[in-house]
């Protein structure tokens, strides 16, 4: 195909727009390497690049702790969601039992309930049961999701029944058939669900903000918001904090971009 003049113009315009879109990221990362004196200069490249801000952040603030809290909660929520959503999705795809349709519709209907309506009851529940200010308090609302269940059911639908019957003839029990035969066949769906869940959880703000008072148990977004409120005149520190909160997700994103973009297009939803 010949490259037309229009094509070059389109490329150029997209390139400039893309750079403009990335400007806040460049700015954030550049500033995190600047000294306090240089912060307000309009240059994208630091004159005297320094790691001081990162050192300061990791030694004199609670960022390392918040980082670990976010990683811990993210992992548990993701593992739990993968396990339960795929098990439930599989059950709806491959079993016949009484009440199936009703239970499925009820689980799907939970997607319509806005988190905002649930946070007040969750907060009261957490206080009554002693879950407030604990990791479990952050984690419990996200252990399963109607969306993931729906997604996994769609994928298990396409697993041939013959394979399952073959497993039965080999004497595997039903749980092992799911775990050893069917789960490996839906790996692409599992990885998409894992990425959405982890990233969604990593960025979650409202519920962790409500359930945690203890500064040592903040997740990264809550800690960042709090930290920035304290240090808002030291913009190089604010940008360093923002970089620390952003860079892990950006790395995950750049590694898995194909799957993420395909998964988003397929399902039309972030975690």
């Amino acid at each position: 195909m010949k490259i037309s003049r229009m094509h070059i113009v389109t490329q150029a315009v997209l390139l400039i727009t893309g750079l403009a879109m990335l400007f806040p990221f460049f700015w954030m990362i550049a500033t995190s390497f600047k000294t306090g004196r240089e912060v307000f200069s309009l240059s994208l490249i630091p004159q005297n690049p320094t790691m001081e801000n990162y050192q300061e952040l990791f030694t004199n603030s609670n960022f390392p702790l918040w980082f670990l809290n976010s990683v811990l909660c993210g992992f548990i929520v993701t593992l739990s969601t993968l396990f339960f959503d795929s098990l439930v999705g599989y059950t709806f795809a491959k079993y016949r039992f009484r009440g199936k349709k009703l239970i499925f519709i009820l689980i799907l209907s939970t997607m319509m309930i806005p988190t905002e309506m649930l946070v007040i009851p969750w907060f009261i529940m957490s206080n009554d049961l002693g879950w407030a200010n604990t990791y479990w308090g952050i984690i419990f609302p996200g252990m399963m999701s109607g969306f993931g269940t729906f997604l996994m059911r769609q994928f298990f639908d396409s697993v041939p029944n013959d394979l399952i019957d073959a497993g039965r003839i080999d004497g595997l029990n039903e749980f092992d058939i799911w775990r050893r035969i069917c789960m490996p066949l839906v790996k692409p769906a599992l990885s998409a669900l894992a990425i959405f869940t982890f990233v969604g959880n990593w960025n979650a703000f409202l519920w962790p903000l409500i359930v945690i008072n203890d500064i040592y148990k903040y997740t990264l977004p809550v800690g960042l918001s709090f930290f920035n409120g304290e240090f808002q005149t030291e913009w190089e520190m604010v940008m360093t904090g923002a970089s620390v909160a952003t860079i892990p997700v950006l790395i995950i994103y750049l590694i898995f971009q194909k799957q993420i973009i395909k998964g988003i297009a397929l399902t039309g939803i972030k975690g």
Partner: protein
Amino acid sequence: MRKQRTLSRSRELWAYAFLAVPIVFYVVVRFYPSIFAFYLSLTDWDIVSRDKGFVGFENYARLFSDSVFRKTLFNTIRYVVVGLPASMFLGFVLAYNINKLTFGSSLYKTVFFMPYITSMVAVAWVWRWLYQPPPVGVFNNILVAIGLPSQQFLRSIGQAWISILVTTVWADLGFQMIILLAGLKGIPDEYYEAARIDGAGNMQILRKITLPLLKPTAIFLLISGTIRYLRIFTQVMNMTSQGDGGPLNSTKPLVLYIYDTAFKSFEMGYSAAMTVVLFFIILVITLIQMRVTRSEDQ
């Protein structure tokens, strides 16, 4: 025959065993709290007192006369009505042009989608800095450097909500783009070829073929976007000073008011009533979507 029946019976038991924990979860963590929110909305509970005083529909009646509620509802609708079309339009312009590229399209997808996946708290603070008055804020420094008057941005009633919306659209339009690209990819090439043989120009093809065939995609984006913009919270909390949705409540969305009412003034009952209103708005929108997509299918 009997063997068959016991087999299916045992599989049914397995199914219930697999569902046991999830059913408990959905009842305890989704359905019970939903019902509890409805119940709370009929009380004047303030978290401190032991009893929840039943007040009937008083909280809902109070919503009508609450000027802050009306203001936040107005702000929220303004975010939806102005922000969503802007991000859908820009997302379409990007998708339409990226779709025509012969190379480089995956790079652009990666770049434009990046803001969507980034933590909104981090995004909000980076933009908050960009919007600061001179000599701190980058935008104002640029304006001054090229000889234009500096702007108030987040500090003026007229500009603050637009500034927040610009950030929101920046973060959001990559999502619209990805979904619209998938929609564009779904249109068979033969349609375009046939139109070209019939002598249709680019504009005609866009109006007569591309846009009509994108309708289902657009409906999905419209509905899911409306719900997302109705729930705007994090960026306003992090971009306004003290997270108060100022200046003078001019940027405060419904969810921020819900949060403040429940967790700053501890009026749990009143706040629950507002969440119920939000629930019904989202329910109605979802029902409209189901209706529209069903009639599309037929």
